[in-house]
């Protein structure tokens, strides 16, 4: 092919060359067309995702304060060594697992129940309840934090007031400065916001289930619970696994704002997570290398989790094709 083309094109003076060249350029254009369509997406991803990602890998082996005029200095694996000797980072790993596991009921169990219950309601009530569940999702984390801080205030808060009035506690509790409560409150607030998002996702997934399955099952004498277990759950399985993936991968990100606003990771690191520590290393200690090393570890561990969930999805998700 190349030989014949070479021969055709070689005598550049012949009149047929132009036609061949046009054909060739059309062919080339056709071949490049898909790439042209992909170009904007690839360019954006490269600029905003892959370049910073690769740069993070590079920085993980450097020492750098990010100050203009200074250059990163290669330090090998020093950042990783410091990371594993850093007590607050070690503590943050345990908390990250706590938030990840603790968020699962708020991202899967409760929303699925709410979605199923509201699904059987008449249109107006259904929309009303779903809107109620979704409202927390659209509230700004700063306002949400301020409201929860007032509610849980040790001396002026409504929660303490009611608990003391009901004789459930003797002394008011300072929830955000108590190591036993701080991370539970962060989890509760994040979960409260998460429920709205997940409920909408499950509700959308429910509407795509064919009603005939339920009719057939009910004619065969299956009750609501059996219908839920044998029809709803299997047909919701792709959404369950999707939400499971979202919840696990983003739990650290979603808790970040409340940690920053309400506890700043304290008391003594009891409510921090890996995300918050990465932020602290980079923008409080100005140690881009240490932060990048933590980010690299985070990327590898959560990348493996994502791959595992992908395999689970292929094995267990049931698609009603």
């Amino acid at each position, binding site marked *: 092919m190349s030989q014949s*083309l*070479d021969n055709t*094109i*070689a005598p*550049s003076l012949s009149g047929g060359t132009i036609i061949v060249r046009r054909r060739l350029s059309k062919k080339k254009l056709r071949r490049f067309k898909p790439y042209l369509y992909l170009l904007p997406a690839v360019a954006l991803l490269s600029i905003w995702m892959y370049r910073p990602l690769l740069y993070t890998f590079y920085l993980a082996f450097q020492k750098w*304060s*990010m*100050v*203009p*005029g*200074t250059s990163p200095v290669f330090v090998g694996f020093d950042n990783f060594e410091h990371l594993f*000797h*850093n*007590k*607050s980072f070690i503590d943050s790993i345990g908390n990250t697992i706590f938030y990840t596991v603790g968020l699962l009921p708020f991202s899967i169990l409760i929303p699925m129940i709410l979605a199923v219950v509201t699904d059987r309601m008449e249109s107006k009530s259904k929309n009303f309840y779903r809107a109620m569940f979704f409202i927390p999702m659209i509230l700004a984390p700063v306002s949400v934090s301020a409201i929860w801080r007032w509610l849980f*205030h*040790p*001396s*002026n808060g409504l929660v303490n007031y009611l608990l003391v009035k009901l004789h459930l506690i003797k*002394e008011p*509790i*300072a929830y*955000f*400065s*108590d*190591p036993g409560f701080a991370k539970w409150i962060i989890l509760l607030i994040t979960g409260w916001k998460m429920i709205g998002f997940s409920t909408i996702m499950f509700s959308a997934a429910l509407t795509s289930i064919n009603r005939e399955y339920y009719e057939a099952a009910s004619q065969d004498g299956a009750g609501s619970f059996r219908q839920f277990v044998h029809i709803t759950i299997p047909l919701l399985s792709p959404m369950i696994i999707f939400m499971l993936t979202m919840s696990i991968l983003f739990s650290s990100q979603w808790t970040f704002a409340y940690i920053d606003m309400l*506890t700043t990771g*304290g*008391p*003594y*690191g009891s409510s921090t997570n890996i995300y918050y520590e990465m932020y602290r290393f980079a*923008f*409080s*200690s*100005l*140690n881009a290398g240490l932060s990048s090393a933590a980010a690299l570890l985070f990327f590898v561990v959560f990348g493996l989790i994502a791959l595992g969930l992908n395999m689970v999805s292929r094995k267990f998700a049931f698609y009603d094709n």
Partner: protein
Amino acid sequence: MRPSVRGSKTTASNKYFHTVGVLLIMKRMAKGALALMAMSSMVWLSACGSASKSAGAAELGALDPANPTKITFYSYSLAYPTMKAGMEQLIKEFNDTVGKEKGVVVEGVADSTMQQYKADISAGKEVDVVQHTFSTLDSSRLSLGFKAYEDIFPKDQLDEHLKGISPNALELGKIDGKMYGLAFTFSTPIVFINGKLFEEAGLDPAKPPKTWDEIKAASLQIKAKTGKDGFGLTPSNGWITEGLILSNGGQVLAKDRKSADFGSDASIAAIQMWKDLYHNGASAPGTENELAEQFMAGNLGMYVSSTALHSGAKKAADAGGWKLYGAALPQFGDTPSVPVNSGSVLAVRPDSAVKTAAVWEFIKFVTGDRGYTIITSQIGYLPLRTGLADDPNGLKDFVEQNPLYKINLDQLTRIQPVAIWPGDNATEMAKVFTDAIVKSVMSDDDVKTTLTTAQNEINGMMP
């Protein structure tokens, strides 16, 4: 490259076209690269030029009132409601008077968490003056390019300006003999007292508790009689903790600043006392904001904090119908307490001779007589030009009307500097120290083990 291109021309014309194309692109790239190199060398040269200018220490550029020089001032006081108005007045008055006359415009940037200036420096923005806390000054000096006053401002002008400022205060921003920060907003810890709760508990707010034992007794009495918390000191406060340790004969950092030294028996005993208050209901739980809010709401008998809260506390007292009293930092037994300073220094990083001149004008104004008068009367910090407190044209009337300032001025005579953690890891060290104190006070963990572990961890981070 050229011979191989010529060779390919003779073999296959498509390769020829391709190669010629590549060559053309390469030529263009080479041109571009040359242009880039030329530009970058120009940038480099100009950078060298500006660097050499600013390195030409103590030379101030010429300011032009017709074409004012803009400088940025990052301030955490601008972000807090109790301090914002005073700080805005300070900046506005400068811009309207000296700034207008000399040709300087100061733009205030609110920086509540003291992270914004770091992020902006990292992003290449112009950050000229920062209201900087003491404990991490060394780290900023090393990593953020803050400059020593002696290196950039004319010696005679600097010496002249520093006259009248408390010598103790001047020492606080010095590292390795050079002043990297000039004390700006400054206070010592004070016990704010709610007179109404004191009286309801049968205590006399005019004769406040002096020792920690008396604090405990008064706190429990207030709680028993009024049902409200008697005393509050946030375990995560950081700086007042240091005063507690020093008051009992301990120290936080060794004298040579080469090792942490808060694991001694004296330090442990001080923290143990605080733990006792906390676990026996004599110290209210809560974060710094929560305790401040509790005190302002009239629900806390005594609250130890900086005088920066004075204006807010006074307004709250007036609004709530109670009288605000004060006391010095409590002492252990008969030994007078050793307070440390809170507040900030002004750290500077002008990048040209003109900017240096503009920054110098701003520094002179805000740390001059008028500046400190505004800072004290409108915000609540101490006048570091202590003579102002006796000056009828300065703050004499103000101090007489607000006797809490006398307590603070008295404490200035025995003040010790807050620990400036050394090296790049200063922020991490400060965090480990604070976390260890919080854990020692709040949890059931052994104080000695917790402090010793933290001390070893910090010593492992020393430069």
